[in-house]
């Protein structure tokens, strides 16, 4: 009965199987839409139209995608090291503190292009620090990083509520948020690029410079993981901690360095909503983006070339989902949370569900493509 151990061709491995998984996730989501009494196909059309049908829609889609590129990269880097960083949410939240300190200090004196690099440093330092503690505990004390990062999400949430309510809130204000940053801490929008293509974008559209930063980071992560010695060590450790140990790679060093990078990437996510859109730090500005990163990384197979389109897909779901909520009040934005869960389930936990049938199919139809001589498939 057992299928021969066959390697699928790369296009099937990296293209076909993820697509099948994704299709099944969306099919199940469609069932949920049916269950609430709406037409899933009409919903899908409204969703795509809402996300890509107008310049404004595209600007919002890419704005959300920016968040998810950062958090997706953060999860992916940790995945390469065999670590599961669920703490992106907390790391991004705490990074808001780093950004707030930089912006509140410099927004009156510096122009944005000087504040921005400082804020990047602040954000990544705060995010990395929040990842460092779980990393250190994993490396030196053997406590499981999944549990500690979850705990740190809650601790971050409590800490930020405390800071925003009791410390950062300006005197006399009721809302638990910092004061609005001045121009020196507001990032320029990128809507004009879309306008160049003849699309209509209002100046309020939140797409901003941090989108470009996200793309740069995607490239840097690719270069780091596949083109540097450190990246090689990270992948080695992720593939086989034992082999890495034999190769003389320091276990605790590689865990801590990887988590620092992961936390820094998650932290940079905070730049997009804070400096690019809201111009203040408010409660719950991360809004689940840290968790979406898990789905994005799984869908993108932890490769930047997969993560960027996966992030844009989730950006589409967020923006199109907002439009959908107008048209079909029964389907609120929480639909995305379901889709996110289903994508994580089918692209992550059940990723082998369709591998076996696909392998069998390949072995039967085109034995050569999986490296078998014809007729050998019955072995």
């Amino acid at each position, binding site marked *: 009965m057992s299928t021969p151990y066959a390697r699928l061709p790369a296009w099937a491995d990296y293209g076909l199987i993820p697509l099948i998984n994704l299709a099944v996730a969306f099919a199940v989501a469609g069932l949920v839409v049916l269950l609430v009494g709406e037409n899933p196909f009409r919903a899908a059309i409204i969703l795509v139209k809402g996300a890509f049908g107008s310049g404004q829609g595209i600007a919002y889609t890419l704005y959300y995608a920016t968040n998810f590129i950062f958090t997706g990269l953060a999860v992916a880097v940790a995945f390469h090291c065999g670590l599961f960083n669920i703490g992106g949410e907390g790391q991004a939240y705490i990074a808001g503190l780093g950004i707030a300190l930089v912006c509140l200090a410099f927004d009156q004196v510096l122009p944005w292009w000087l504040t921005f690099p400082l804020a990047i440093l602040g954000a990544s330092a705060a995010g990395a620090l929040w990842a460092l*503690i779980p990393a250190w505990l994993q490396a030196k004390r053997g406590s499981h990083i999944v*549990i*500690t990062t979850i705990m740190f999400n809650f601790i971050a949430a*409590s*800490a930020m509520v*405390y800071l925003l*309510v009791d410390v950062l809130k300006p005197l006399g204000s009721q809302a638990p948020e910092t004061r609005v940053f001045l121009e020196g801490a507001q990032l320029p929008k990128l809507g004009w690029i879309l306008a160049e293509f003849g699309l209509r974008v209002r100046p309020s559209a939140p797409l901003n410079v941090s989108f470009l930063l996200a793309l740069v980071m995607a490239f840097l992560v690719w270069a780091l993981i596949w083109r540097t010695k450190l990246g090689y060590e990270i992948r080695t450790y992720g593939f086989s901690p034992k082999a890495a140990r034999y190769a003389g790679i320091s276990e605790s060093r590689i865990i801590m360095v990887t988590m620092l990078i992961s936390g820094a990437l998650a932290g940079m996510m905070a730049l997009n909503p804070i400096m690019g859109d809201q111009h203040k730090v408010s409660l719950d500005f991360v809004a689940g983006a840290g968790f979406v990163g898990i789905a994005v990384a799984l869908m993108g197979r932890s490769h930047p070339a997969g993560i960027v389109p996966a992030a844009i897909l989730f950006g589409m779901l967020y923006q199109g989902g907002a439009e959908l909520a107008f048209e079909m009040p029964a389907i609120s934005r*929480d*639909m995305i949370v*379901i889709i996110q869960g289903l994508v994580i389930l089918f692209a992550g936990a059940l990723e082998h569900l369709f591998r076996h049938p696909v392998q069998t199919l390949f072995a039967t139809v085109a034995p050569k493509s999986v490296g078998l001589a014809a007729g050998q498939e019955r072995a």
Partner: protein
Amino acid sequence: MEALDIAANVLSSTIRLSVPLLLACLAGLYSERSGVFDIGLEGKMLAGAFAGAAAAAVTGSAWLGLSAAILVAVALALVHGFASITHRGNQIVSGVAINFVAAGATIILGQAWFHQGGRTPSLPGTARFGAITLPGAEAVRDVPVLGPIYSGILSGHSLLAYLAFLAVPFTWWVLYRTRFGLRLRAVGENPAAVDTAGISVTFLRYRAVVCTGILTGMAGCYMALSQNAGFVKDMTAGRGYIALAALIFAKWKPVPAMFACLLFGFLDALSIRLQGTPLPLVGRVPVQFMQALPYVLTVILLAGFIGKAIPPRAGGVPYVKER
């Protein structure tokens, strides 16, 4: 006398608040002791709470609500089992997925079915598990010491609360005094040995996962049908994770699990009680600090600064039969 009243009050709400933690914690115990990590406790509780409240609202029966809660939680537990036992997927990824599906689906379905912004209709007393007065509680109310303890703290909880505390000795008995329990512990430590003895690892783990489903369903049902009168969106608010923390705190043992849950319940009750009141010596403690305390304690414990928590050895590792 007033201080005593306050103490009785806090302790009584400690019990009330630790019930869902305890049920979820014991739920996690079955699964994790069998070698299946489950960070989807939160999602199963939430789905159970929603199903329980929805069924109770439609049928008007608390018992049908409980059945629906258990059914839905077991179904989700089986999805987790299917992914992590049958398909050897990553157990943590699967748990995360279930949490998201539950978080989204409860709101979407709640809105579609009841049109109250993700809530279920407020339940009348008959469709809930109300407070039970223990026998003799009225009689001893005025007896000093015994009165406040028996009728003030122990009496007046719902049936599910008493069931939760009875589940502790029961779980201990199952785990340490039955064949199933022995095998359950063995399969979490060394599944190959269990397999060699001719016992199906898969079936054993599936049974453990079903136990998890039943108990998380009860936990969710308690929140929706006893603590509250209906489902409110995201009502579990991280309790599944606190239960997980309690499980680690208790080193995967049933009786310590109860004390860990009571401790976390006490912290919760205290933080509600102390909201805004200044303490002697330290002054006003921020509520957020009290809320974060269980998580901080867990991290410290995990780091091995208070004893060492060693998880079941085969936890998180899918079993591959040798061929």
